[in-house]
């Protein structure tokens, strides 16, 4: 952690992500207004002290909605990354440790999958699974498996010939024990950067899918859905789209910088 803090990108990323997460956390408990409360007399108001980001076509407070949407988007991203990470760890760990034909086949498949634009694959998954919040999580989670599996595999393959692993083996530790208790903790630092990239991609994918109308469905909130609603009022209330878009950019930027600071891409 200390060595990362020296990196400017990491510090900037930590700051942005930290602020966003604080806002999201507070938003889970409290928002200035009920994000869903409509008001016929307060439609499409400009940003003001009372409504920081103004109000939408139903008189709802956009600031509250953006906080709530950012929280939902973040949770979706977190769940998708978690799915990808856990399954990626298992597959990558096993293939990296044992190698062999299975390893070869799985890596070829993951190469092919990684070559594809993720939005296209996500759309195909949605076609199979159906729309909605949970299906988005599953679809994105599955899409993230190959990239995590790949990194874990190469790290495990590197580590398995190191001295400490040989020692553990001599001590009679089982393969599973070696893999999950000895090797895995050592690849965590490398993984952190990919997790940040994963979040980056997940936020962008969720926003895109929900914008296209195949992701989160109303009344469930999400930044992508807000943006697609905001598009309808681009002329009357440009701040709606701009504020929502800025929230998306900040989330993506924060995770992007974090990943870079940790030596990713």
């Amino acid at each position: 952690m200390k060595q990362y803090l020296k990196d400017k990108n990491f510090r900037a990323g930590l700051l942005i992500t930290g602020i966003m997460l604080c806002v999201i956390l507070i938003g889970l408990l409290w928002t200035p207004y009920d994000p869903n409360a409509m008001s016929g007399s307060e439609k499409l108001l400009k940003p003001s002290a009372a409504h920081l980001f103004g109000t939408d076509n139903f008189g709802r407070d956009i600031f509250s909605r953006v906080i709530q949407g950012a929280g939902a988007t973040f949770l979706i991203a977190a769940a998708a990354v978690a799915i990808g990470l856990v399954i990626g760890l298992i597959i990558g760990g096993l293939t990296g440790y044992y190698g062999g034909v299975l390893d070869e086949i799985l890596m070829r498949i993951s190469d092919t999958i990684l070559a594809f634009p993720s939005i296209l694959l996500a759309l195909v998954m949605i076609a199979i699974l159906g729309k909605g919040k949970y299906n988005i999580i599953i679809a994105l989670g599955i899409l993230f498996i190959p990239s995590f599996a790949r990194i874990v595999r190469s790290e495990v393959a590197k580590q398995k010939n190191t001295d400490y692993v040989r020692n553990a083996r001599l001590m009679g530790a089982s393969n599973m024990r070696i893999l999950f208790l000895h090797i895995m903790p050592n690849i965590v630092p490398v993984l952190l950067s990919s997790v940040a990239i994963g979040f980056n991609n997940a936020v962008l994918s969720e926003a895109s899918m929900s914008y296209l109308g195949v992701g989160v469905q109303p009344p469930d909130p999400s930044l992508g859905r807000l943006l697609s609603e905001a598009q309808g009022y681009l002329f009357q209330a440009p701040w709606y789209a701009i504020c929502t878009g800025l929230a998306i950019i900040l989330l993506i930027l924060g995770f992007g910088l974090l990943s870079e600071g940790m030596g990713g891409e």
Partner: protein
Amino acid sequence: MTYVLKKTGVLIISLILISLLAFLAFQIIPGDPTTKILGTDYTPERAEALREQLGLNDPLPARYLSWLKGLLQGDPGISYSYFMPVKEVMSGKIQVTAALSLLSWVLVMLFSIPLGILLARFEGGHFERAGIVLNQVFMAVPPFFLGMLFTYLFGLVLHWFMPGGYIPFSQSVPGALGYMFFPALAIAIPKAAKTAKLLRSSILNEMNKDYVRTAYSRGNSRWAVLRDHVLRNAMLPVITYLAMSLADTVAGSIIVEQVFALPGLGRLLLSAIGNRDFPVAQCIVVIIAFVVVFMNYLADIITQYVDPRVRLS
């Protein structure tokens, strides 16, 4: 030559695999298309006749082969939503998406290469620092949001283009391309930022190599070293990246078409997925997948010609 042959072999196998996967992916989805097509006119007899007509009663391998054959002959089946040949439903839409992605791809190159070189040239200066920060921000902007901003700024405020006023290719090619400029820009900017960053670090990486020091020691200026020695080597990873990023611009088009009301494959794919019109969805997915795989293949071949070291390894 053996390298090219080998890669071509892999390409063909990949294409077959992709078509198989795309076919299977849409077969495992439950539901009977005949109920959808017939609606209230549904009777078991009519459904049976329709199944026969659509070839749904054949075993899976036979259906795959006949679909693949049709695909290769340019006849990828019948749309369930429109009940007309997929080819007809897609008519005119491939051109829109193809033109949009190519245009944005060209823009990516136009922006990223000079920018990457400039950033490397002025390493350590204020210009570079400002450039890198901006670059980082642009990388984080979703193309569809950029599209909305462009619509608002250039369309609604400045009136530089007419939002929604897309002119089909059939009426005016310059008109169509003109309308596509801003959508293409929206797709290109984040991608160009990423490419410029890659080029910059690739150049800086080369700059630390021995041959560069030798060049400097001969009294060459930084520009001259960059131009005559570094660029060729530094471009290698970038060329590969650019070739592969055509796939990303295709994906970008699918989304950005929605923002600018462009009648391309994106809208069709979405409605096909929404309407469970799988022959259409399947066909679009396969077309894009083919483009992706083919561009990767080209990237491999180009890299090999530009850099003989790859040939040896």
